[in-house]
């Protein structure tokens, strides 16, 4: 720790701190444009100049370390002045230079109202210009369907370039030319290839890069902001849902150090327009082969008529990828009271039994824990597409120091160097028998981590593969009471919560494939499962939000609420319990899902014992206490689970693993309803074809 005096206040900070960090520790505000906590230091905007006593000129505080400051003549701690005349003059000068070429188009700029340059010009600038010459004009660039450019406004902070090169690992942007003619662009104006590219518009301190889909649509001051959680994948990114009236306008990231730091994927951000289209806003009833709009009463009585005459053994219930814990709990309670045994939430057909223990279906280390791993084996997963922000964490870990990453499964560009080991289960066996050189790296590692993807589990021999991976984890000592280096990478937001609730077949019940099989059952409750088609024969009650595959197959449609329209609990792939918040109301006659099930239970004569969300949650928490601890990961006994899993046995086949998420941009009903994500998807497909050539 080093002492430093900031504006007369002495603070004790680590020597490796920069002056900017030291000033912030002392409570002084330092303006900045190019500096960003999570990016490398560029030091090119000069806005953070401060006066350092003894230095001949103001110094850029973002790039000047506390340990590089010289003490005073009598050994006094170095002194920084952030409010002195020199500092003020330096800031005014920098601001004047920045504004020389910056257009005065704030009234039509999408950044207006949340613009760093605007705010800092107000706080630190002067009120007039002395520049009479022509301003620089820069051609607009095409850099993809998600980010619009207004390059006249660019102040060359290079945050976008650094973000893509460092965090995203897809260095698509660069700065061509030099000096005044420097321009930010992608190579020959091709679309950026990163699944995190939307973040560059968030990072842009001016309006040079703005979100294309909502450009000219929103002003920050007309939005109501609701803190929530993303459900596009199982990572559960912290988001802020910005709504105008009842319409969700945009989704922005929130900082959550344990999950997404401050980034979100493009799917999370731009699924917004999917929330508006293809919505189910009233109940529907199939009559004579055609769906017709119906009232709630009609829909309920149709269901009741069907259920009453059906043997509970011929009834099944399935849960899709986007359902919250509350409605799954309500559905399970209703089905249990009806005596239904065929329940399943494992839409992809994953071979996971919650009885094995929680460590068998979550990532025990947590996402932040990845930073402590020193060797990572990915089995049947492409984390870049299945859990983008988790992949960012692995890349961050790789940037921090040497990291051995091995991949078994489909070859993929993970954005960090990795050893491609093989395509299928036999490679796992080779690794276990030490035939592969990567086995040494795993054995030598202090904290190895084995991540098994859904692609490896969602197949007939999934249990055997899980057993083999667990056995390998046990043999290399990956799982100890201190370090649970074995985990499963879930891809659906609803899955961990549903498994926690035990929404799996009870004795004698069918599993997902069995329920969906043609003619297997007479009545099927489908809570938002859109990825699997339920075979002909059954009377399907679909409760969901979008007119997607599930609704097309339904005999009764009950319109539910999307994740931005209800307060619902989701458990992410780490096992972290989080809740969404309501940013707006569901469209039309649509209702919150738990309330629909509660109303339906009344019609079925099996009234559920809760009349409000809080009563439901009280019952839920009494039964499953860990749901009450928000934003925490309930501890689980990974050692015992891995022991159990290793004992499962079974012989894996030799079929190669396939991706759990074939199309990143179209992985659920909301995303499939989004026009923006459809465009991204087609671009990605073209890029994939080009890469294959």
């Amino acid at each position: 720790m080093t002492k430093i005096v900031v504006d007369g206040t002495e603070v004790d900070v680590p020597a490796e701190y920069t002056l900017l960090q030291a000033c912030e520790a002392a409570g002084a505000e330092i303006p900045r444009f190019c500096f960003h906590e999570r990016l490398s230091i560029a030091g090119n905007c000069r806005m953070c100049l401060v006066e350092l006593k003894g230095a001949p000129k103001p110094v850029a505080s973002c790039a000047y370390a506390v340990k590089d400051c010289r003490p005073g003549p009598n050994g006094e701690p170095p002194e920084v002045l952030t409010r002195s005349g020199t500092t003020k003059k330096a800031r005014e000068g920098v601001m004047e230079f920045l504004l020389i070429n910056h257009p005065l188009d704030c009234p039509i700029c999408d950044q207006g109202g949340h613009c760093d340059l605007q705010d800092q010009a107000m706080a630190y600038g002067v009120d007039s210009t002395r520049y009479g010459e022509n301003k620089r004009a820069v051609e607009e660039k095409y850099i993809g369907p998600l980010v619009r450019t207004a390059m006249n406004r660019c102040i060359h902070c290079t945050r976008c370039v650094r973000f893509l090169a460092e965090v995203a690992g897809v260095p698509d942007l660069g700065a061509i030319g030099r000096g005044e003619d420097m321009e930010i662009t992608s190579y020959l104006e091709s679309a950026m290839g990163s699944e995190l590219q939307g973040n560059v518009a968030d990072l842009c301190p001016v309006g040079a890069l703005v979100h294309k889909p909502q450009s000219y649509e929103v002003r920050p001051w007309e939005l109501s902001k609701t803190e929530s959680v993303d459900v596009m994948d199982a990572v559960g990114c912290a988001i802020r849902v910005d709504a105008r009236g009842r319409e969700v306008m945009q989704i922005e990231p929130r900082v959550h150090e344990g999950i997404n730091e401050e980034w979100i994927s493009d799917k999370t951000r731009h699924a917004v327009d999917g929330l508006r289209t293809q919505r189910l806003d009233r109940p529907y009833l199939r009559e004579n082969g055609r769906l017709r709009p119906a009232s709630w009463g009609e829909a309920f009585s149709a269901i009741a008529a069907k259920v009453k005459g059906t043997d509970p053994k011929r009834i099944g219930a399935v849960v899709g990828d986007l359902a919250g814990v509350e409605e799954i709990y309500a559905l399970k309670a209703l089905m249990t009271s009806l005596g239904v045994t065929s329940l399943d939430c494992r839409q992809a057909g994953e071979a996971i039994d919650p009885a094995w223990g929680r460590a068998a279906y979550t990532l025990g280390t947590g996402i932040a824990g990845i930073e402590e791993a020193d060797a990572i084996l990915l089995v049947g997963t492409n984390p870049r597409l299945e859990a983008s922000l988790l992949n960012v964490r692995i890349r961050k870990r790789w940037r921090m120091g040497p990291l051995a990453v091995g991949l078994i499964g489909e070859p993929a560009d993970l954005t960090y160097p990795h050893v491609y080991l093989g395509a299928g289960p036999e490679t796992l066996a080779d690794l276990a028998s030490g035939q592969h050189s990567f086995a040494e790296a795993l054995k030598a590692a202090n904290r190895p981590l084995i991540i098994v993807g859904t692609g490896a589990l969602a197949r007939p021999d999934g249990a055997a593969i899980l057993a083999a991976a667990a056995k390998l984890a046990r043999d290399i000592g990956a799982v100890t009471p201190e370090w649970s280096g074995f985990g499963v990478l879930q891809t659906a937001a609803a899955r961990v919560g549903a498994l926690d609730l035990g929404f799996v077949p009870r004795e004698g019940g069918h599993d997902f494939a069995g329920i969906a099989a043609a003619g297997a059952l007479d009545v099927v409750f489908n809570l938002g499962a859109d990825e699997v088609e339920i075979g002909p024969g059954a009377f399907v009650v679909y409760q969901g939000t979008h007119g997607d595959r599930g609704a097309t197959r339904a005999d009764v449609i009950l319109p539910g609420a999307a994740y931005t329209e209800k307060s619902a609990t989701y458990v992410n792939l780490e096992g972290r319990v989080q809740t969404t918040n309501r940013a707006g109301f569901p469209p039309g006659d649509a209702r919150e899902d738990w309330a629909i099930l509660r109303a339906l239970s009344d019609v079925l004569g099996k009234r559920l014992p809760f009349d409000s969300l809080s009563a439901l949650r009280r019952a839920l928490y009494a039964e499953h206490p860990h749901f009450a601890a928000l934003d925490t990961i309930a501890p689980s006994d990974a050692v015992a689970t891995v022991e159990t899993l290793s004992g499962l046995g079974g012989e894996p086949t030799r079929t190669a693993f396939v991706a759990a998420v074939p199309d990143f941009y179209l992985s659920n009903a909301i995303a499939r309803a989004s026009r923006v994500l459809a465009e991204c998807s087609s671009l990605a497909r073209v890029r994939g074809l080009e890469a294959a050539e």
Partner: protein
Amino acid sequence: MANRRLAPASEQPAAFAFSSENADWAKGQIDKYPEGRQASAVIPLLWKAQEQNGGWLPQKAIEAVADELGMPHIRVLEVATFYTMFALEPVGKFWIQLCGTVPCDSCGARELKDYLHHRLGAPGHVSADGNFSWLEVECLGACCNAPMAQINQDYYEDLTPDLLGKLMDDLAAGRPVKIGSQVGRTSSEPLGGADTLTDATLFDGSRVGAWRKRFEKDEENEAGKEEAASSEQRAASDPKPARPDAGRAAERPVTDAPAQRAAAGETPVKPSDKDDAADRTESTAQPNTPAPAAPETIAKAEAAGAEAGTQSALPRNEPPPQPTNSGASADAAAPASAPHPSDPKKGN
């Protein structure tokens, strides 16, 4: 410098690959750098690619270099667009890079520019005969021989429009040309020929041992007068203080400022200086803020001012009125009454 873009697709070659000779050379360049730092070779490789492609860099060459070094294409494009030495569009057989930075500009680069405009048209275009294209670039580091231009690999300096025209004619006709200064000076020696180190004896060897001869001569003279003591004996009997300037001729300090004189116990201003001073009665300037080092003088000056009836009654904390007549500036007049302590001119 304008925005630099790749040449239009119609001019781009369909493919680029290093010739086997250049590929070997490139490999040698890459091998200079440790594993993982191959990107350091990007400039030599781009240069070679440009040379191989007739003086300009096509898109495919940028991509080839990027692929060879394992860099993203945009990173190599950044380098290629940063430096004007990489031409992104086809250039003439002779590519003239005219320096337009300040030293060349003040020595006449603007006339050269006008000349090139007149003869070749706008920069960046190849002349009809395919011989020339030109570009104004920033400093090429030959300011001593400004104005200058780089034509292909060589510098041509001390140019005038006439000389440049002749040079271009010669190049176009394939006649031999002189590289470097076009007015006959060697390297960067002064324009009128060398004016230092001109003594022929410096170079003919006659100076070798000259200092020794001088000492021997002195010693002969001394020996004629008295028995010379050894230098050690002399040093013992006549010690000198160990100062940096020990043994040098005693000199007065360079400055003879009033403050120094005051410190030495003398009157700050010499009477002779006072006689030289301007006549206060004719000065309209007010005495400056008094210099603290010479209070005695100020008192005198004020008394003198009061006697002379000048405006010394003005409050001290107000700025003095500025002199109205152009003949005597405030600086010239003020020290007469209140010499500035650090002004050495007045002391001598």
